[in-house]
């Protein structure tokens, strides 16, 4: 046996192989598959359904049937079309909040972990932000300005940022003491490069995991906001406002609440499964801690 082939046998070079990676991680696989399905449905919604806003009085409160899969609501609107359209709002809000709060939280958290003076000031501001309930902030913002999905995203993101900052900051403080960071400083690496090359990549795993939880909670908060009328405007179907509109007819037409409710539950489940799966594979220590 040649050295090269012996070497291959002893330590085969493992390339990243997605199917193999997913096989041992059922939660990750289930979450990813479910979320992917939901994303595809959301993207294709306009082609899979007819207009979600069409009012057809003849169909009012019709139960699910072969032409109205999920039945119709009190105005005769197709619940299937509206539920599918609602997926878009939920996913856009969930993903945007997760991405924006993760990005801002990472930047602020890394700087706070590095500069102690900045840290003292910024962390007090973060404490203050954390005290604002996102629902109240959203109500205040929608009263002051014309409501819209953008405002909902802003309102939910602001109180989420401090949570991400706290996480990133604590990770950065531990990473700073790591021998490889000290070694990089000893090698003359500049502070900015230490942050971008040695700190940030190593802080990404817990950050991604945290972002999935932020995403799930943002989806729920958006549904809550839309339910009380402080979320997206009523002409955009969202699971929250569909449920809100149909709640008084719950006893005679439960399907108008049931299907968007299922959608909401499935989406949050998918994101949380994905988060748990990622946590287990990216950050083995955190799974014991949480």
């Amino acid at each position, binding site marked *: 046996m040649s050295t090269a082939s012996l070497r291959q046998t002893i330590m085969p070079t493992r390339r990243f192989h997605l199917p193999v990676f997913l096989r041992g991680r059922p939660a990750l696989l289930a979450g990813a598959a479910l979320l992917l399905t939901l994303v595809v449905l959301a993207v294709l919604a306009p082609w899979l359904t007819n207009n979600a806003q069409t009012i057809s009085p003849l169909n009012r409160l019709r139960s699910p049937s072969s032409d109205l899969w999920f039945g119709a609501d009190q105005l005769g609107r197709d619940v299937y079309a509206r539920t599918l359209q609602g997926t878009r709002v939920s996913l856009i809000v969930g993903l945007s909040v997760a991405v924006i709060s993760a990005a801002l939280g990472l930047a602020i958290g890394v700087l706070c972990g590095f500069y*102690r003076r900045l840290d003292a000031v910024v962390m007090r501001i973060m404490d203050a932000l954390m005290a604002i309930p996102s629902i109240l902030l959203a109500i205040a913002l929608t009263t002051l300005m014309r409501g819209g999905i953008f405002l909902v995203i802003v309102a939910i993101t602001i109180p989420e940022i401090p949570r991400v900052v706290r996480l990133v900051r604590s990770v950065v403080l531990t990473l700073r003491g*790591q*021998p490889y960071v000290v070694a990089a400083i*000893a*090698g*003359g690496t500049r502070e900015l490069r230490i942050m971008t090359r*040695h700190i940030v990549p190593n802080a990404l795993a817990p950050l991604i995991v945290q972002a999935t939880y932020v995403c799930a909670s943002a989806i729920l908060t958006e549904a809550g906001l839309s339910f009380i009328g402080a979320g997206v405007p009523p002409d955009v179907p969202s699971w929250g406002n569909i449920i809100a509109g149909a709640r008084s007819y719950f006893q005679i037409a439960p399907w108008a609440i049931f299907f968007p409710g299922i959608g909401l539950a499935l989406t949050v489940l998918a994101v949380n499964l994905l988060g748990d799966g990622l946590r287990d594979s990216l950050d083995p220590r955190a799974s014991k801690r949480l």
Partner: protein
Amino acid sequence: MTLSVSVPPHLPATTAAPVLSVRDLHTHFYKDDAVIHAVNGMSLDLFPGEILGIVGESGCGKSVTALSILRLIPRAAGRVVSGSIKLEGRDLLTLPPRELELVRGRDISMIFQEPMTSLNPVLRIGDQVAEGLQLHKGMGRRAAMVRAIELLDLVRIADPKRQAQEYPHRLSGGMRQRVMIAMALACEPRVMIADEPTTALDVTIQAQILDLLADLNRQTGAAIMLITHDLGVIAEMARRVIVMYAGTSVEEATVEDLFAKPLHPYTRGLMTAIPRRGAWRVSGGLQALQEIPGMVPSLREPITGCAFAPRCAYATQQCVREAPTRQVRPNGHMIACWQADRLETMEAPS
């Protein structure tokens, strides 16, 4: 502190000026309200191209001295209180941060104790070795990588081209320490500080790494300050030794002089504490492994008198009251002990 006499350079075996010269270094750590005097008036000279051993037990300030030289003491934990650290005449303690960054890695580099955690787990090792080259030599990515592969070859990593593409978790401790050495060597520094480079490795790998360091010292002419608690390593590697106790040097001599005639009672204690073949069999007899009685002094208060006095069999009233002055013998043997003359006439331990 009475022990703050500026010490003249001893043992100028070469007439060259020292490349690194530390004078009367004091480093304190602050914990709760207590001040911990980790380094108490340490002085040393490192001459171009030599290997200087620094030996002492855990907590005697070896590593803190090394970290102080590179100004790596975390600001929140402690700081260098006084003294001077001159690298080729420039005082590192007063260097502005930007210039300090340029000195680190280029003029003076460090090899750490923990090879398992001293490499960034998310970067390929080739990139990590190349980083210093891009930083200090202004090399482009490609050129730096070519040089990095040469360096990996120099530290005797087999198949360096392939290994450069690997992540640290795929390498053993010995291999990682080689990578660390390659990184430390990358910019051809004049001084390398090796802080217990072999402590975390098993014995056969230790020997390989030490061989490698000795070879590189000969090839590149980089002076190495080798910190260890192992007198055996010193005997094999160094030309000169400094024995540290309680944050300062207590004895300094060439390896031959120190092993032939250790003068300080602490050094003698260290030598009798080396396990020898057969010693355990006659346990209780003359050959029994000796320990140094007592404990390392608490560094929370400034030490009065000789720091070793409470553990020393030869201590007198003078030792307890007054800090010993450093005396330099004609052969360059430095010792900080009041009883040195008395001890010299007594037979050294076998």
